[in-house]
């Protein structure tokens, strides 16, 4: 082999070229996944016969393949349910695997056509349901099946599970953990000052003035969670205006954000912002730090959030805080849906792909999860209710937040609603920018309306985004 002298300048050039190629590769590699492999769309392997006892016709000696998001709840509750299932079907092989990156981990399996039987599609890297909707099984037969105690499952659940899991006409998502949006406050602080939780935006404004007299703010916010205030405004508007208002927003109708009820709610919030009742600087504050300003410093009185707030702030809550929730504000005393109506938002979305390994085993697993034993186990271990009713004792395992959530859910009864479009179309990130500006007092109600409408119109006019009709 002939030797060639290695030219340094040539090498540097090569290195420069390589340097240019690398980000190219890395930025492209990040979205190159899967192959163009054609999966056979034949249905899953031979199933057992359907019966009352085996409502989904699972293959008794087959396998259950469950992938569970390993987040705040862990996976032991799912293993508990799988053990219940194993008790019922001793010949079944159960596999419950944890995952922290549902989307990235399972994407190749979806593309190859062999996804798991059931997935807890949760966490920051969950799969956007819109992209897999056609591959998912429906849960209608689960609702009409009997649970392991012999009761029809739909009778044992809080209302709204089906509505909130339905995308278009398809009941494809089964949310397992019950939670709800509310305005949270410290009951001990309110009692010490003789304050009551406001029911309307006017009362909130008056409370803001009282707070200011004490050197406190009414609200505070953090940059990544500014959209909790969007949820609050929509809660007000949906309760006040009913389905008409809700469906216009949810279905991305033109001028939906100009509806009078939405405008009144935004104006009411703007009045509070302009009066200086909102702690400034939220746009530069990390959201848990902002929440600690409410739960630990008590610099602000109220914080609109979901019922997970107690757990989230556990280590940063002042002793004796007595975290309590109140329903989201309305505009006057005659809201269409009623003041008690609630944005009940069941979480931990479970999905069952149609092409799972053992047809029906995913739903059988959900049936086990909805058994009294598994639901009670969850409530006790995680201190959070499931969608199964009556699993939380009167003392709420010592948690005031849990007790008030249960109370609010019971008071709301059938009057529950949900905000679906934000997650379905993935627009929360764009909303954050707009809401940070609004809360910081940088934009007017008109600018805010335009900005929100623009984001909604953009999705509505994008022919490449598949729309659903929210009912």
């Amino acid at each position, binding site marked *: 082999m002939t030797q*060639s002298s290695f030219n340094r300048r040539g090498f540097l050039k090569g290195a*420069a070229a390589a340097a240019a190629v*690398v980000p*190219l590769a890395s*930025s*492209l590699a990040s979205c*190159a996944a899967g192959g163009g492999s054609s999966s056979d769309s034949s249905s899953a392997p031979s199933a057992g016969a359907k019966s009352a006892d085996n409502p989904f016709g699972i293959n008794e000696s087959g396998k259950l393949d469950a992938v569970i998001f390993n987040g705040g709840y862990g996976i032991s509750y799912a293993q508990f349910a799988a053990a219940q299932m194993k008790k019922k079907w001793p010949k079944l092989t159960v596999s419950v695997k944890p995952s922290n990156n549902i989307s990235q981990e399972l994407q190749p399996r979806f593309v190859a056509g062999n996804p798991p039987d059931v997935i807890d599609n949760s966490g920051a890297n969950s799969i956007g349901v819109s992209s897999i909707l056609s591959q998912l099984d429906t849960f209608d037969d689960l609702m009409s099946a009997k649970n392991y105690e012999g009761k029809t499952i739909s009778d044992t659940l809080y209302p709204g599970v089906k509505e909130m899991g339905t995308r278009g006409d398809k009941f494809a998502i089964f949310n397992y953990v019950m939670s709800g949006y509310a305005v949270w406050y410290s009951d001990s602080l309110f009692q010490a000052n003789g304050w009551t939780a406001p029911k309307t935006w006017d009362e909130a404004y008056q409370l803001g003035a009282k707070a200011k007299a004490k050197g406190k703010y009414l609200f505070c916010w953090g940059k990544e969670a500014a959209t909790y205030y969007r949820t609050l405004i929509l809660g007000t508007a949906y309760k006040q205006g009913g389905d008409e208002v809700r469906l216009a927003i949810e279905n991305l109708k033109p001028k939906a954000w100009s509806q009078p009820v939405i405008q009144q709610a935004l104006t009411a919030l703007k009045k509070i912002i302009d009066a200086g009742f909102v702690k400034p600087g939220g*746009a530069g504050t990390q959201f848990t730090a902002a929440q600690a300003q409410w739960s630990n410093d008590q610099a602000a009185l109220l914080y609109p959030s979901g019922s997970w707030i107690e757990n989230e702030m556990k280590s940063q809550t002042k002793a004796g805080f007595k975290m309590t929730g109140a329903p989201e504000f309305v505009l006057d005393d005659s809201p269409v849906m009623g003041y008690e109506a609630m944005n009940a938002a069941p979480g931990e979305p479970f999905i069952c792909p149609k092409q799972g390994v053992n047809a029906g085993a995913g739903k059988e697993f959900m049936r086990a999860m909805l058994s009294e034993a598994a639901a009670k186990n969850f409530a006790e271990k995680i201190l959070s209710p499931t969608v199964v009713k009556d699993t939380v004792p009167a003392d709420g395992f010592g948690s005031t937040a849990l007790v008030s959530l249960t109370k609010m859910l019971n008071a709301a009864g059938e009057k529950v609603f949900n905000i679906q479009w934000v997650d379905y179309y993935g627009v929360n990130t*764009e909303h954050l920018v707009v809401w940070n500006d609004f809360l910081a007092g940088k934009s007017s109600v008109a600018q805010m309306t335009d900005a929100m409408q623009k984001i909604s119109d953009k999705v509505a006019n994008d022919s490449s985004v598949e729309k659903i009709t929210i009912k």
Partner: protein
Amino acid sequence: MSAAIPPSTAAGVALEDTPVRATAVPRRRRHRPWTFDKVSFFVVFLGLPLAVYLIFVVSPFIQAFYYSLTNWGGFSATFDFVGLFNYTKILTDDLFTRAMINNVVLVILVPVVTIVLSLILAILLTVGGSSYGQTRGLGHSGFYRIVSFFPYCVPAVVIGLMWGQIFDPSHGLVNGLLTKAGISSANEFAWLGEKSTAMPISIFIMVWAYIGFYMLLFVAGIKSIPAEIFEAARIDGAGRFRTAISITVPLIRDNVQTAWIYLGIASLDAFVYMSVLNPFGGPDNSTLVMSQQLFSTAFQKGQYGVACAMGVVIALMTMIFAGIVGLVNRLTGGKDTVTLA
């Protein structure tokens, strides 16, 4: 999305080059038979890196370009071809164009500021010391070197979180000091939440993180310059500044160019810093960068075809940037300058 060079890439490029040169040399001997020794050498040292390069670098590249012409959602085996629709879509999308502009701002400012500051530090630490006796840096330069390199040892995510806390409006160090100093407008001022300050502060944090490493790179470059040159310049009466401009910088020109390209690539990415400091794009999207848009399009909206088109655009911009840097270097006389090697 990191900008580190995997060894295989550099090796792949270098090795691709070598055989071409080898054949260009006129042969003096007859072709020797293929021995096992020779074949195995080729396979291990040429075939393997080349294969790794083709499989892990070139093929994803082509695949991503292919997906960018489709409406692939990421979770199915089927998709339709949509031609250049994804490209027209992102180039007319106000958010993506906004992100492109922000990236261009970064790519102009971050390398200039970082290189100027780290060059100054490097010169101070190597040749900026006493003018008597041997050429040397400032006293205790070893200590300064460690201190300024330190930020580079901290992961970018941690840097972002740390500075996020330092600039916290209510409990942050910056506002605490400013209000103590009597500047009342700093009270509750959201440095990362104001449109006018979010981008400058983000750039400051990136520069802070990069300076130490590039300083070290330049220190190494300057150390390879023979001390006699500095001594000769000093005898001729050149001051420190004159020496730095006329001797030091021209002699480490290659290092500066390499640093410029690396920093440019880092600013065209900027994903980690921006998504930690302002995960959603910052006030009025003033800190939104293309890689953040790519991430949310792919993983939140499930539009992998569009996301791949964004990736291709980022890649093209990176190549154009590297080309411009090379061109500027050539036009400013980079080819004629003497390099010591």
